[in-house]
């Protein structure tokens, strides 16, 4: 490596001299062993040693430089960097696939499945009315009075029929035991999935009031991958939870979730608001004690002069059950993600996948923007899909020109798509 000494003579330097390591200057109490060649421009004339007690001012009490960051917290943050790297290595290390569980696959029963019977009943009734009308017309019965009379009778008849069918169906739905639900789910599994069905199922998963009663079948991806998907879901939930805590009038510079760490820079109205946010992180079990929580009145944004910079680790929630994690092809996955974007009313670019080889773990990106509420909804939507995609890093940024209530947040989710080599 080049070693400059700008006190040497001008012109071309002697590289051998520069590479030499000598002890000159390291033994201040002793006379120098060899006089080093130095530039006359910087050598102080050889004057008698200056007496410190005569010329020097008394030692000045060292001023503490401005340092609002909690030093101990930084120390902790830095000390834990090794742990972060270790966790990351473990997280993405290649894993051996495991055998699938033995339980039979069952699917939930959805109320929506019963609507076709009602529709068929209505169709049948309408056809009966039309045929009846034609018959009456041909037989000269279609005078104004008779039409009125016939329609009234037909309407009452159809209403009674449909009402009876609907009542029966509701009774049937209420009385369906779980075993029948499982059989229905199995039947659904046999039917090939069409893109349209995939889209509607995403919304079902999120919006179904019966989700607590859902029973999932065996998973189609190895358990090791499922854990990564679950960690990713946890990160999505944390990001959504943290975003929810920010005041709508605050300005967000960035929010980032990686591994088990959340960091963000946020500008709020006053120190009280900042303390409230701090209390959120130290108040519960979800987060560890913040490694850095830096609150400073910087005045960078006129309406929100107080800046918060935070690094905090979160506690990973206990894993959910590992059932029902489906392997989706790239096309299906894209449709699911896209549908989640539509549900959340965010702008979204098409899913970017790094590689075509479906037999390996591949990286992908979900990128777009949306209002704060919609981005929160997207994060929640994505965290509820039991798929073969794990969320690695969540980056959410804003332009700072607008508060959260009015700004568009840019989101970027770095993800991994896992193969189904079970």
């Amino acid at each position, binding site marked *: 490596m080049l070693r400059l000494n700008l006190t040497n003579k001008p012109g071309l330097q002697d590289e051998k001299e520069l590479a030499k390591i000598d002890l000159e200057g390291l033994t201040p109490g002793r006379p120098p062993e060899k006089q080093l060649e130095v530039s006359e421009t910087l050598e102080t004339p050889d004057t008698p040693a200056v007496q410190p007690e005569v010329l020097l001012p008394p030692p000045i009490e060292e001023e503490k430089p401005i340092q609002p*960051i909690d030093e101990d917290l930084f120390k902790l943050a830095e000390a834990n960097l090794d742990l972060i790297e270790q966790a990351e290595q473990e997280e993405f290390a290649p894993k051996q696939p495991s055998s699938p569980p033995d339980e039979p696959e069952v699917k939930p029963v959805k109320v929506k499945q019963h609507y076709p019977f009602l529709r068929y009943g209505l169709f049948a009734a309408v056809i009966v009315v039309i045929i009846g009308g034609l018959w009456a017309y041909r037989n000269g019965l279609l005078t104004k009075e008779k039409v009125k009379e016939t329609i009234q009778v037909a309407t009452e008849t159809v209403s009674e029929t449909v009402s009876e069918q609907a009542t029966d169906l509701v009774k049937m739905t209420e009385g369906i035991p779980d075993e029948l639900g499982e059989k229905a789910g199995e039947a659904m599994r046999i039917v090939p999935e069409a893109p349209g069905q995939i889209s509607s199922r995403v919304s079902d998963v999120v919006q179904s009031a019966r989700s607590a009663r859902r029973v999932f079948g065996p998973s189609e991806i190895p358990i090791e991958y499922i854990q990564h998907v679950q960690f990713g879901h946890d990160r999505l939930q944390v990001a959504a939870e943290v975003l929810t805590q920010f005041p709508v009038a605050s300005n967000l510079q960035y929010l980032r979730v990686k591994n088990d760490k959340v960091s963000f820079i946020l500008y709020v109205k006053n120190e009280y608001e900042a303390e409230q946010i701090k209390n959120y992180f130290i108040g519960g079990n979800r987060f560890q004690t913040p490694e850095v929580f830096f609150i400073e009145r910087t005045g960078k944004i006129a309406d929100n002069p107080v800046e918060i910079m935070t690094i905090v680790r979160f506690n990973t929630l206990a894993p959910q059950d590992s059932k029902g994690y489906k392997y989706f092809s790239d096309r299906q996955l894209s449709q699911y993600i896209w549908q989640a974007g539509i549900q959340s009313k965010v702008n979204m670019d098409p899913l970017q996948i790094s590689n075509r080889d479906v037999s390996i773990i591949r990286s992908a990106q979900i990128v777009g923007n949306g209002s704060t509420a919609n981005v929160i909804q997207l994060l929640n939507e994505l965290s509820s899909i039991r798929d073969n995609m794990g969320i690695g890093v969540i980056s959410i940024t804003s332009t700072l020109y607008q508060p959260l209530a009015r700004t568009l947040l840019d989101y970027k989710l770095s993800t991994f798509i896992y193969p189904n080599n079970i």
Partner: protein
Amino acid sequence: MICISLSEEFVRFGQLINTDGDYTIEIVRKRTLSTPFTPENITNPELSSALQQVFQEIRADLPVPDRYVALALPAEWFDLNRQGVDSGLSRENIEEALNWNAKKRLGPVADQKFIQHYLLQRQGGSDQEYLSVSYFKDLGKLFLNAAQPSGFNIHIMDVNILSAASALERLEQIGSDEKWAVWLVGEQKHSLLVIDSGEFRQLVRFEFSDPENYSILSSTSSDDIGEKVIAGINGIRTFEAEGLSAVDRLYYYSHEVDSEFFNMLLTYDVENMKTIDPFENHKPVYSYEDDGNGVGAMCQFIDLMGLMIRKMPEGV
């Protein structure tokens, strides 16, 4: 040896002592300059007196009386330029050619400058490469005047980012076949040094002109490697990229440890981008910890450590 590293607002210093083969860092401290150390202030008498005062304060702080001084100064005080010379020329002709080139490059101010040329290790090609470094003679006078009242003799002067690279190369045991870079993170302007196969490749000054873009301010050559690294850094900054591919490793450090941007960088877990505590294995007897003692605070002394390492043989 008293090692002193200057940045715009601060003076960091330390003392290295060799006692019968044992190397000890006696003290590491930081003091504030009352007048900014910027090229615009080179003839400002207040800067001269601020340096005089801080040198005297340094002398008062030294555990062992000392006069031998090594300095590291910011890159913006120097003009650095790579130039190639045909092989086969005599030493005198090489020097003459380099001086001629440097004077052409510097123009009318060439006579006011102190110019040196350093041979770079050959990296293929028939030409021999040299790094020409120049600085205004007034800078030398400034330090001579500042050092005299304290009785200090300045024996070594280096560019701080190059000094930091020396420290990193040793402390991180970077292989001679690696391409790596050092990024001095500033509040507004930044410096990036690229080292390829153990040798200086390019020094670039740049700034982030807005939240999404960067601007190159100066460069020691037309090589595009520096800009590739900067584009990679910008990608990480704007969350477009997760890693760097232009170099094997990137080390960053800052003299502005309160900088919001620098503190944000510390939160990024990019695999081949990091900073270090230069004193992790060489603990000073008296260490400065007013900015904290984590790697984010201690990295500000990397270039100071580079000056010390010049006198410390391998393995110490």
